[in-house]
């Protein structure tokens, strides 16, 4: 009997089966986007690019896509800045009750998003900020900041504090030593955290759906609400575009940061 028991063929088959299961809805959506019929069959009855043309000329989809991208970019930028500096102060114990502060900053991950959504709906109604873009942006900062704080804290803990102290001894001020020493070392983790924040904002429905004004919508909320009115193959075309974009972003992120190690 040999010592090394590799995985058996049954296990390999089960593992591959589960991997396939994970990709099935993705493949089905892509298939539906190219189908000439409004319903799905295998093999598809006729291939067409018609639905992509419909989507790329649809003003509502385009403006929803822009709103989503700007919101995600704005929320991520703010989360990165606020999250990193707060995490730095917490990591270096520059504030009292650092552990409690860190918990508070991670708390939006634990609260069900739909609860935050309805709480903000009431809050913004009371304060007259309902349907306000600023309110929506702040809400997205809250839901994305835990990813940045988590990534920052874990990256900072792997940085040798003596390096920054050495820079200080050599006459650099606090900001300079942070910028030249610590920041480059935490950057890969920060990029991964920022990417997670960006995707979280781009993905969000449970908070956005309660806060959007009647005149604006984000891409996921548009798909979410349009499905209730009946499925149209153009939804599959939009989804396919998102699938391709996600795939490209994942591959680039993996190349830049070894993304899978930060998940």
């Amino acid at each position, binding site marked *: 009997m040999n*010592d*090394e028991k590799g995985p058996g063929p049954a296990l390999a088959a089960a593992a591959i089966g589960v991997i396939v299961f994970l990709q099935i809805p993705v493949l089905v959506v892509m298939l539906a986007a190219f189908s000439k019929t409004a319903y799905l*069959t295998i093999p598809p009855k006729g291939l067409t690019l018609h639905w992509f043309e419909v989507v790329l000329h649809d003003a509502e989809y385009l403006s929803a896509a822009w709103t989503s991208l700007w919101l995600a970019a704005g929320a991520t930028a703010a989360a990165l800045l*606020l999250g990193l*500096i707060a995490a730095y102060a917490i990591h270096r114990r*520059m504030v009292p009750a650092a552990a409690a502060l860190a918990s508070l900053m991670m708390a939006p991950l634990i609260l069900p998003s739909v*609860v935050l959504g309805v709480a903000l709906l009431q809050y913004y109604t009371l304060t007259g900020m309902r349907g306000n873009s600023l309110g929506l942006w702040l809400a997205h900062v*809250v839901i994305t900041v835990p990813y940045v704080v988590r990534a920052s804290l874990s990256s900072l803990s792997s940085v040798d504090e003596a390096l920054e102290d050495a820079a200080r001894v050599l006459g650099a001020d606090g900001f300079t030593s942070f910028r030249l020493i610590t920041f480059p070392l935490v950057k890969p983790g920060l990029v991964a955290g920022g990417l997670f924040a960006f995707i979280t904002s781009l*993905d969000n429905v449970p908070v956005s759906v309660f806060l959007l004004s009647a005149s604006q919508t984000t891409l996921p909320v548009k798909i979410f609400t349009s499905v209730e009115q009946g499925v149209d193959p153009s939804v599959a075309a939009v989804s396919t575009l998102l699938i391709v974009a996600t795939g490209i972003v994942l591959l680039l992120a993996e190349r830049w940061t070894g993304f899978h190690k930060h998940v």
Partner: protein
Amino acid sequence: MNNRRLPGLLLVSPLLLVLLLVFVAPVLLMAPLSLHEYLPGTGVSQQWTLANYTDIVTDEYFREVVLRTLALGFGVTAICLVLGYPLAYYIANAGPTMRLTLTMLVIFPMLLNLVVRSFGWIALLANRGLVNNLLIDVGLIERPIKMMFNLFGLLVGMSHIFLPFMVLMLVPAIQAIPKDVQAAAYTLAASRARVFWSVTLPMSAPGILSGSILVFVLTISALVTPRMLGGPTYKVMATLIYDDFLQTLDWPAGAAMSFVLTGLTLLVIGLSSRVLRRWGGTA
């Protein structure tokens, strides 16, 4: 020490301010809302009442929704565990290239927009969806089987959505098991099955618990997939809250349900972290 306090507070306060104003305050302000009655037509009354909370326990419909949500949580967690463990075990023991490829294939659907993934399941499970069409073409069934707007559809869809989280929690737990423990068991002539049940599975228990808690909590708080696959009729707690706030406008009832959902989430997380700490202490 004092010369560090001021810069520290300056660094923390912007985020702290945002969280207090846009996270803590809104949630706290929902508490008084949940303690008033909603009068259809007139709005929220001035009278204080606990009725919104007692209704959740006494009203048959609310009770059914809460129990359905919990059942869904347990069901999805069990399915994710059964499907996720073999894959995680395989990934943990695979060579570097295979491990990276499979990990990327697990992460990819997780990063993909949730709405898109749920839409994929609609395309599969609808009455004129792929699965029904396929079964009819093959001749196994004559009429479409109802696979959406019921427990089946939600179980399948949500298991798919949350499976990657389970796998990603299990892989490091399985990798952390020292190889020589398993090798020792084999040396002592234990069978493959015996090694799995007596060594591998118990030693990966912390990963199993963390993964299960994560999937359970994500399942009971999910809104998008239950709404898209369950429609407006087959409700869970999150979709009930959604309808309370956007359709029926019974905000107080929705607020009470929100606190019950949050309480359940915190309870599960609290219990599991106590168990994990105890295990951590004895290991």
